[in-house]
């Protein structure tokens, strides 16, 4: 052994000793920290908790969960709630892989997604937190289309209309000669899935010669910029842009119904109103920070939903939300 090698091995030994000491030190300091968090939890809901809650999923529901997180920060500033927007499908993929605590969804979970969760033995519960009303909008100067039947909508949007239905007078002979300009949701969105399913009768079936956009502001600009324009998006976007656009009443056989909070709550705005969900996992609810966040979400659902400009649940749905969450808490123990 040369002196150089000897020095090297001495350094290596020293490094090993130091790192072992550090590791031991680490284990020594852990118990008090753990003790702190359990004592905080046992003090009840008012105690200041810390930790992280991960939510991901639908970009439609994200503003809702984000608003909940923002309100919640006022009472529990040390709980870090993060909200991702992987889309409903992408959210479930992560959720069923055990990577998130709560999955936001603008449609109920599909059977194959449920199977993926079962395979990882992830138990969950479905909570309906708000209602959304897909709103069909036209230009302010459009005087003829105040009410459209679902058949007329289908005539405009079905795959068979591609390249053929290009004028309002083709939709209905009473309508004037005005070119039809269509703006809609991008094919990756839950909104597109829902609209095509309800109007065209098959999820994903739509004519392709329209201007699709994932960004609803593009639809707003498009429809407000052309007299014959027509588009659809969530109720929130209409409320924010009510000065630029006109909402169309929808007739699904029982007369014309305008999209409104009351109509959607009463279940009259069919078929374009839909429930919005969150899916918390049972394992996550066992953690005090997740339970506290969900408790806040459920207790203040009306405030959160109104603030995010969605349609709040009616009394019956709200009591169901509360009992569903109570059942989930019992399940989590």
């Amino acid at each position, binding site marked *: 052994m040369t002196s150089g090698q000897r020095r090297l091995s001495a350094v290596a030994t020293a490094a090993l000793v130091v790192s072992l000491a550090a590791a031991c030190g680490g284990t020594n300091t852990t118990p008090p920290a753990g003790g702190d968090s359990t004592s905080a939890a046992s003090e009840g809901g008012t105690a200041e908790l810390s930790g992280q809650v991960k939510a991901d999923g639908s*970009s439609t529901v994200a503003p809702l969960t984000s*608003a909940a*997180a*923002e309100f919640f920060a006022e009472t529990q500033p040390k709980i*870090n*709630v993060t909200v*991702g927007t992987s889309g409903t499908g992408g959210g479930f993929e992560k959720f069923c892989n055990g*990577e998130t605590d709560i999955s936001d969804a603008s449609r109920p979970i599909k059977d194959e997604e449920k199977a993926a969760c079962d395979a990882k033995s992830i138990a969950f519960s479905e909570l309906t937190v708000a209602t959304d009303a897909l709103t069909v909008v036209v230009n302010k100067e459009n005087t003829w289309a105040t009410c459209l039947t679902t058949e007329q909508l289908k005539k405009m949007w079905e795959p068979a209309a591609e390249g053929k239905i290009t004028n309002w007078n083709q939709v209905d002979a009473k309508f004037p000669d005005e070119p039809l300009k269509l703006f809609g949701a991008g094919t990756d969105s839950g909104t597109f899935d829902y609209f095509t399913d309800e109007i065209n009768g098959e999820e994903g079936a739509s004519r392709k010669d329209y201007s699709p956009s994932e960004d*609803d502001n593009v639809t*707003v600009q498009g429809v407000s910029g052309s007299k014959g324009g027509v588009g659809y998006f969530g109720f929130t976007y209409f409320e924010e842009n009510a000065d630029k656009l006109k909402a169309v009443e929808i007739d699904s056989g029982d007369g014309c119904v305008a999209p409104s909070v009351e109509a959607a709550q009463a279940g009259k705005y069919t078929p374009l109103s839909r429930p919005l969900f969150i899916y918390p996992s049972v394992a996550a609810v066992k953690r005090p920070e997740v339970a506290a966040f969900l408790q806040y979400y459920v207790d203040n659902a009306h405030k959160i939903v109104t603030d995010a400009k969605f349609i709040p649940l009616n009394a019956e749905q709200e009591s169901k939300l509360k009992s569903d969450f109570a059942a989930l808490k019992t399940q989590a123990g």
Partner: protein
Amino acid sequence: MAVLTTPRSNVELASKGRPVKETAFRLALLASLAIALIFLVALLAYVFIEGSPRLDSRLWSNMPSIRDPEIAGAQSAITGTLWVISLTALFTIPTGIAAAIYLEEYANTSKWYNRVIELNIQNLAAIPSIVYGILGLGIIARTFGLGFSVITASLTLGLLVLPIVIIAAREAIRSVPPSIREGSLALGATQWQTISRQVLPASIPGIATGSILALSRAIGEAAPLLMLGAVSFIRFNPDGVFASYTVLPIQIFNWIAQSREGFHILASAAIVILLAILLLMNSVAIWLRNRYQRRW
């Protein structure tokens, strides 16, 4: 400057047709430059004017808010971007330089495997960034179990820009005259001493420029990070490499998709911040280049 330019001729070559062609060519070059510049200036002016009402301290001292654009800020996105980009630099620059040194100074290019490596590096530089996102999700986030954290994002962005660093560093190393190496070796220095004391210091300007270009690309990436769980709403700064995070491009993307006008203004202001960070990085590169520039 050590840059070679075509020396301007003192003799007027005034034979027929020449001046016309000369002027036309010069105008064509000017037009190309103008096209590039006009778009950049228009873009900059637009985001500045649009974002000016919100270009104040709220932008970096407040956390994001979905409820009120007036109190919303981008602090978590700014710190997230700085965390991700610093770690990316830490992973990529040493690895990239080491790979370039191997390829330029040690690799025997007559061996087939070295040629395969070379060809692959060129190809890697052209792969769409979303593909790296999928790779990062499958391997770094899930197989390595690093989750959706700052370190996953940095490693993935590091892989994404590594080929750019390698290519730039190789060019820089190649531009060091062989006489410098030969002189060093002739004086009895070993190969490593030659590289570390002569070749590397001389190639710092080129390497710095290449590295900053690579990091500038990484700082603007949103696509792969969308796959890697950069969240759209977070009110905390990252507190370590395993923390959740968001970055400026994603924050901007989210604000633009909001329905309220106030958020669009905020998005423009955040673009200005992103550009400011980029400019700061570029000026460091220019400073480094000027500081270490040598003439042979």
